[in-house]
């Protein structure tokens, strides 16, 4: 098609520029506000240009609001969720696609069911499960009358495992790996077996290297998801030092009765959104693939 549509071309660029501005302006204002001093943010109208206090504010945020620790927590939680979920899912998907064993479909449906109920709809009992992982044993103990089981108590509140494990309990990644494994040519597995490879060798030497691009794409999505967690850390951390950065921001929100420190909040917000933003800027090609795949 050799079409000339100057007016529509111009309108399209205008739409896209406005869209980009809608995305960028709020982020820009976060940066600007994060670089102003307390007196500057109270001035009306507020400055549209960055001030000189960014580093000073950053220091306050890192030391007084303990954001160094919170950002580290975010990193640990996000990495834990990413690595844990990938590891658990890829082997589970291998088991349900490459093995014939009793209860195979049962196992598949059990995993598949967890796609249906997000953690938000079952928060109270999930919290109770994390507050005492031994809860099912307690109930069992009280039925059987075994006091030792009733007294078991294993509390995950304010621990990294409590923040990570319940978020691994979903099957999105398993499902994706399963879909991918189904497209891997059967000849590879046949050839591996003729050469005498064990299932585990086939998995490690052939299947895993083949899945590399899927693993990277999924790892990016999972890392972003883990970094941006909100509800679960909110419930599970009573100790401020165990919260993640996003929860830390909520605590910095100005309350009506104190001096509004928007500049510190915005500085902290900028620091918190920097790592995931860099991740998708640098790894964009992989990220788009992962996003479209995981939506299918």
């Amino acid at each position, binding site marked *: *098609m050799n079409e000339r549509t100057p007016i529509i*071309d111009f*309108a*399209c*660029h205008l739409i*896209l520029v406005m869209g980009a501005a809608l*995305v960028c302006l*709020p982020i820009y*204002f976060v940066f600007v506000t994060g670089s102003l001093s307390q007196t500057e*943010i*109270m001035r*009306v*109208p*507020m400055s549209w240009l960055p001030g000189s206090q960014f580093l000073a504010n950053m220091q306050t945020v890192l030391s007084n609001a303990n954001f160094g620790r919170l950002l580290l927590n975010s990193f640990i939680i996000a990495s834990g969720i990413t690595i844990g979920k990938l*590891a658990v*899912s890829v*082997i589970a998907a291998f*088991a*349900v696609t490459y*093995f*014939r064993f*009793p209860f195979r*479909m049962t*196992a598949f449906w*059990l995993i598949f069911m967890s796609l249906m*109920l*997000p953690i938000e*709809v*079952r*928060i*109270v*009992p999930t*919290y109770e*499960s994390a507050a005492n992982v031994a809860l*099912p044993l307690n109930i069992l103990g009280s039925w059987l009358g075994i006091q030792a089981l009733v007294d078991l108590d294993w509390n995950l509140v304010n621990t990294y495992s409590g923040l990570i*494990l319940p978020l691994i*309990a979903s099957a999105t990644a398993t499902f994706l790996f399963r879909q991918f494994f*189904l497209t*891997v040519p*059967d000849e590879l*597995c046949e050839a591996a077996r003729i050469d005498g*490879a064990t*299932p585990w060798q086939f998995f490690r030497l052939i299947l895993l290297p083949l899945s590399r691009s899927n693993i990277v794409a999924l790892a990016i999505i999972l890392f972003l998801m883990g970094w*941006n967690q*909100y509800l679960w850390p*909110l419930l599970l951390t009573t100790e401020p030092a165990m919260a993640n950065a*996003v929860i830390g*921001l*909520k605590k910095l*929100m100005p309350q009506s009765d104190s001096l509004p420190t*928007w500049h510190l909040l915005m500085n902290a*917000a900028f620091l*918190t*959104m920097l790592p995931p*933003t860099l991740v*998708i*800027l640098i790894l*964009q090609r992989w*990220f788009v693939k992962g996003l479209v795949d995981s*939506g299918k």
Partner: protein
Amino acid sequence: MPARSDTATLPAAAGGGGLRLRWPLRRLLLKGTGDAQSESGLKRAHFRDWRLPFWLLAPQLFILLLFFFIPSIRALIQAFQLTDPFGATTQWVGFQNFERLFRSSVYWSSAQVTLIFTIAQNVLTLSLALLLAFASNHILRGRGAYRTVLLLPYAIAPAIAGIMLAFLFNPRVGPVAHMLQGLGFDWDPNRNSWHALALIVMAASWKHICYNYIFLVAALLSVPQSILESAYLDGAGPIQRFLRISLPMITPTLFFLIVINFVYGLFETFAIVDATTRGGPAGATSILVYKVYQDGFVTLDLGSSAAQSVVLMALALFLTFAQFRFVERRVNYSV
């Protein structure tokens, strides 16, 4: 080639590749799925073993058991129980929690708020994403650069999106609020419930447009060039081609995104509400997910919270089925 002969002739791999269960249960379990080729989701070339897959599945199933199945079942049980806030006594009350819930005007107003919120968010997100997808599909130069920028919100936590807009629209310090006030608009999301609702709709859409956009761009790219070209030869302009050809052809993607947007609006916007309006003013932005949290953790009305969980579970199940239906249609959709 039937899988059975394949697997039987090949030497059993080490680790008990050829091992079989001998009890009669096996026949019972495999009845109906006996033919290897009809067994869905199993590779034609597969291993026969039950010990290795057991260990491979164990971590996932164990975590699911602890943090998915037990909590979900307990949510169902708790919906029919009444527990006092200190957890001292528990009694079965049948459907009383649900009766109480459906009689509560606060719950219905929360449902109404949720409905308005999810629909407004859906319409705003999808229409802006469509506009942007059309524009970036039409232009030839600079697509990549626009896409990079438009995708940025995906990296940003919903809570941060909420906090950011809450700042921009803060009546005392926010630059956008100052502009609105300069235009003579009495903007105050802390007092006016519609303003608060508009704020969370904007934050939710800001965060989610990029997701819709990327799917729409992918869908528009898959519209066959030949059809667009023949429409061009018949004299259809770009807008006409978009409205008459591309849009009808990507309806499966549109349906899919509508379902996804509802799921997002219902469940994932908790952080936006909690970080900005906290359900206020006077419950004007207390969407259903937020109310479950409040009744479960703040007012400690556990029975009611569990009943609300069950209602949300039913909604989530319904939306998941809808999603898979549309995905199926989307996959089968070809020219």
